[in-house]
Structure formats: structure tokens, C-alpha cells
């Protein structure tokens, strides 16, 4: 087993290193797009964790494709300038269609009422993440912390919910976002922007939804996760340094992240095997 085959290296060191290098380069060349470094770090990790093949086209591969679609949409938004309500609705519509495409194999054989409940509930979750994370796009440090905390909690909860694959992927995004948070403290001109927040919302939302539908992530975990983008908007005293501010935001989000993990742990039971 080589170093790059180690799950811990794949979902922590690899995305962190790629994000660090790329964010520094983008920070010099095009600071507005620095958030893209997080997504690049995630995709390098995803290539190691899950491979680059597209067949069979599983839900996980569909999610990775939809994340790339989100990158394209975010790039379009960057080049077109401020987006209109219509453009935002089109993006949300595309992502909802993507969610249903990803969920279809699991929904198609469930009773209609259960399938509709799942689809509607998860649609609300994804749309909420899209809107709430997008609202943080111009605040790089809170944006990075929101992605990091959402990813950490959802990643650990997914592993407890019997899917190491999805847990590893989500954790890779959290690790990359963690590096971005540290960089925003050192290089204040870095921007999160839609290039980070749109793909991150799509990936976090869809991967968590997949962990619920295809593994055993309880819905209560998603409810606690959904509070994170709201809690991060709680105003803090203005005179705090950026580092203290970051530490306080992490502390502020810890209970919600902890409850999301606890729900998964409680639901799975504590027997290791």
C-alpha cells in the first residue's frame, strides 16, 4: 500500500496540499478565484478516493459530475458579473434536477409517499444550502469556516452512518476548506466567491443526501447541519482580530456539528466491528 492509498492521506493531506499550493498561486494571479483552490483540492482527492472512471454511472459519480457543472455555472457567473434572480433560479433548477437524477435509482422502487417525502425534504435541504452558502460568498473567512464545519460534521456522520466512501469525500472538502480558512487569515485579499460556494453547496448537499438515501445517515443529522450556515451569521463584536473571530465562529458552530455527529452515532449504535 502506497502513501496515496491511505484513506487518511487521501482525504486530508492531499486536498490540503493541493489547496494550499493552488490558493497561493491564484492569490497572486487572480485572488477573486482563490476559492476554486478548495474545489480543485477536493477533486484531486476524489480522483484518488474514487478513481476517474465514469462507469457504471453511480450516484457518487453523478455527484462528482454535478459538482463540476456547478464549477462551470460559477465560472459563468464570475464572467457575467452579478447574477440576476432569473439566473439564480435557473442554477437552482439545474441543481434540483441533478438531485433527482442522482436519487432516481433509490426513489424509483420506494412507495410513492416515501419517495416524494424524501425528494421534497432533500430538495429543501439543497436549496437552503445553495442560498445560505451563496450569501457568504463575499466573506471569505466565515465562508471557509461554514464549508469546513459542514464538511467535518457531515463527513464524520457519514462514516458513522456506514459509508466510508461518502464520508471520505466530504471530509476531503472539509480539509481543503480548513486550509482556505487559515490562508484567509494570512492573505486577506483572497476571496471565496461563487467559485467556492456554489460547488461546495452542491457537493455538500448532494453527498449528504446520498449518505441519507444510500446509507444510514439519519435525517436529524441533516437538520443540525442545516443550522450551520445560519448560525455563522450571528454577529460577533467588531473589535475582534480575524484569528479570534475565526476561533469564535468555530466554537459557535461546534454544538450544531456535534449534534449532527451524535445523531448519526446514536442512530448507528456504538458497536465497532
Amino acid at each position, binding site marked *: *500500500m502506497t502513501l496515496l492509498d491511505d484513506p487518511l492521506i487521501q482525504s486530508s493531506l492531499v486536498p490540503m496540499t493541493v489547496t494550499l499550493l493552488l490558493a497561493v498561486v491564484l492569490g497572486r494571479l487572480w485572488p477573486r478565484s482563490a476559492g476554486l483552490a478548495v474545489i480543485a483540492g477536493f477533486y484531486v482527492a476524489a480522483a484518488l478516493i474514487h*478513481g476517474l*472512471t465514469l*462507469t*457504471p454511472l*453511480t*450516484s*457518487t459519480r453523478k455527484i462528482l459530475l454535478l459538482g463540476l457543472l456547478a464549477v462551470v455555472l460559477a465560472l459563468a457567473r464570475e464572467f457575467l458579473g452579478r447574477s440576476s434572480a432569473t439566473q439564480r433560479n435557473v442554477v437552482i433548477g439545474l441543481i434540483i434536477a441533478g438531485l433527482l437524477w442522482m436519487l432516481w*435509482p*433509490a426513489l424509483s*422502487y420506494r412507495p410513492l409517499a416515501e419517495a416524494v417525502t424524501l425528494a421534497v425534504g432533500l430538495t429543501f435541504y439543497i436549496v437552503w444550502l445553495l442560498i445560505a452558502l451563496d450569501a457568504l460568498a463575499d466573506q471569505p473567512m466565515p465562508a471557509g469556516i461554514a464549508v469546513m464545519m459542514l464538511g467535518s460534521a457531515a463527513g464524520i456522520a457519514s462514516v458513522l452512518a*456506514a*459509508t*466510508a*466512501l*461518502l464520508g471520505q469525500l466530504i471530509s476531503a472538502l472539509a480539509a481543503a476548506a480548513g486550509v482556505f480558512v487559515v490562508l484567509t487569515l494570512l492573505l486577506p485579499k483572497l476571496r471565496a466567491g461563487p467559485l467556492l460556494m456554489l460547488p461546495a453547496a452542491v457537493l455538500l448537499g448532494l453527498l449528504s443526501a*446520498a449518505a441519507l*438515501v*444510500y*446509507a*444510514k445517515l439519519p435525517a436529524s443529522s441533516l437538520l443540525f447541519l442545516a443550522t450551520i450556515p445560519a448560525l455563522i451569521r450571528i454577529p460577533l463584536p467588531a473589535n475582534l482580530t480575524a484569528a479570534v473571530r475565526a476561533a469564535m465562529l468555530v466554537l459557535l458552530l461546534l454544538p450544531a456539528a456535534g449534534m449532527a455527529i451524535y445523531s448519526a452515532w446514536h442512530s*448507528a*449504535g456504538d*458497536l465497532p*466491528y
Partner: protein
Amino acid sequence: MKKWIAAAMLGAASMTAFASSENYTIDPLHTFPNFKIDHMGFSTMYGRFGTTSGKLVFDRDTMSGSVEISIDAASVNTGFQKRDDHLRSPDFLNVAEFPTITFSAKDAKLNKDGTGTIKGQLTMAGVTRPVGLIVNRSRCDMNPVSKKFACGFDATTRIKRSDFGVKYAIPGIGDDMDLMLEIEAARD
């Protein structure tokens, strides 16, 4: 004229062969695909699939036929619910997306003693690969309990799960996976 006689004889022979092909339905109560896999070099983990269905066409004169077996992937059972949930997840069998594991062979042929290798296609987790199913023994006879004519097969094969895209935790959990199929089928 000789050619015509030969052709007629061949035709008659093939019709006889066709006539002796019989259809069988797999008995789910006596058909269990079992598997074993290495666990970190410490031990060998055994499991089975509880629900299997399928059809056989078998000609006992020529010992040839075809087989279609469908295994309910969600019926995996290793005796521990939490591990079974994990086996059903996208890490392994991904049963929500790929609910069945299938084996099919169109031109199966056994030796006269009922042993042999059946070359077919195994589909698992949405990936199809050719496999050779080694039939260690087989027997066709009247089942004294059900009073139905039945055939039974004891077959094994070894696959690499990574060939089917099931790569989680290799090499800790072995890549080589032995499948042991105990099949009983009653004549229709």
C-alpha cells in the same frame, strides 16, 4: 442421397437433444450463494445471500444447458447487522442502485461425471465480468420429499472484487473473494 440421409439424421439427433432439454426453477430454500473473504490477514469472514431466484435449462443427455441466477444483493448476511448495513452501502455492493447480482451462462457444458467449468457472466455493483464457475459435483434425481425431479449443483469461483469496482478497504479486506454456490432446482 447420402448427404440427405446424413442431414436427416443430424436433424433427428438435434431434435432429440432439443427434446431432452428440461426447464428447472431454482429452489430458493435450498439455493444459497455463500462467500468468504480475508479480514486483515487475521481471519476469514464468511457470509451468504439469503434470497436467490433463477432458471436453468439442462439437458441431462448432453450435460449442457443454460443458467440465469439472480441474487438479491440486499439479502447479504454475515450475522452482524451493522456490518451488513455497511456491505449494502456504496462502499461495497451499493444495493440501492444495484439491487441484484446476476450470473448467466448460455452455453454451459459439464462433463459426464457432472463436474466441469461453466463459463458465464457475473454482474455485481453494475459491472459485468466473465467468470468460470467450477462445478465440483452435481446430481439430478427424484427428490424423495417434494416428489419433484430436481438437480443440484455445488459450484465455486474466485473473483477479484476490484474488477467489479468494489475497492473499499483493499488490501485490509481482501480483494480475492471466494463465491460458493449451492444450487437446487426443481423441474418445471
